[in-house]
């Protein structure tokens, strides 16, 4: 899987995604509007990777757990509590850039 160019197809078919806290994985999954459980491993991860996972969890977009609580989370999860994740707006960036570059 590591060397697949894109997981888009697999993501499209999934009902639930269990992922590490990498930003790309989280964001791609959220964009496809699939429920996601983010598994964090504080020993392995750079601290900054946790930032996004924590924020997404705070905002109710993802479920979080660590390796030891994964089974428990799967058994007791309520996916309906997850809120949809609004898409980013690159057009705002384009507008900004047009203004400053002239």
């Amino acid at each position, binding site marked *: 899987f590591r060397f697949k160019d894109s997981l888009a197809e697999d993501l499209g078919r999934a009902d639930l995604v269990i992922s590490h806290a990498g930003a*790309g994985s989280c964001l791609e999954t959220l964009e496809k509007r699939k429920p996601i459980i983010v598994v964090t491993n504080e020993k392995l991860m750079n601290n900054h990777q946790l*930032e996004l996972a924590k*924020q997404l969890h705070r905002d109710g977009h993802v479920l979080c757990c660590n390796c030891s609580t994964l089974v428990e989370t799967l058994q007791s999860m309520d996916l309906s509590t997850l809120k949809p994740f609004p898409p980013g707006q*690159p057009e705002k960036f384009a507008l*900004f850039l047009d203004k400053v570059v002239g």
Partner: protein
Amino acid sequence: TGGHTAEILRLLSCLSESYSPRHYIFADSDKMSEAKIRSFEQKRSETFSNSQFTLDRIPRSREVRQSWISSVVTTLYSILYSLPLTYKLKPDLVLCNGPGTCVPVCISALLLGLLGIKRAIIVYVESICRVETLSLSGKILYYFSDYFIVQWPDLKEKYPKSIYLGRLV
């Protein structure tokens, strides 16, 4: 590097054709960015007929968790390498989003400006992954960029000179 490339390509997605030609610079150790960039440009050329872009590699400035002292050395080496490249390209605008690779390029662009050779506008967009703290590149370029954009409000509070436009990617 991969994640940064995916993000920056999203940032580019709405730019008009006046942002041309586009020069992509990435680390020599980066295996995946080239494919992503080519695919992006390929799609773009389906809409815009006059799409021009180039690809260049420079030595990677710093590995993850590389020590301070050796990072300074490797970054200096990357600067020496990127200076002639930046001089050749003479960009009007330098756009970056945080990989270590961007620091030598921005420094080169700054030097060219200071020497009166070419003044580029430097725009830095911190990665969406950065919610509460800035990356090391961000901490450095906060002081040296013309426009420093963050994607989460906490960072705007901590770094008042930054610009918050909401989530861009």
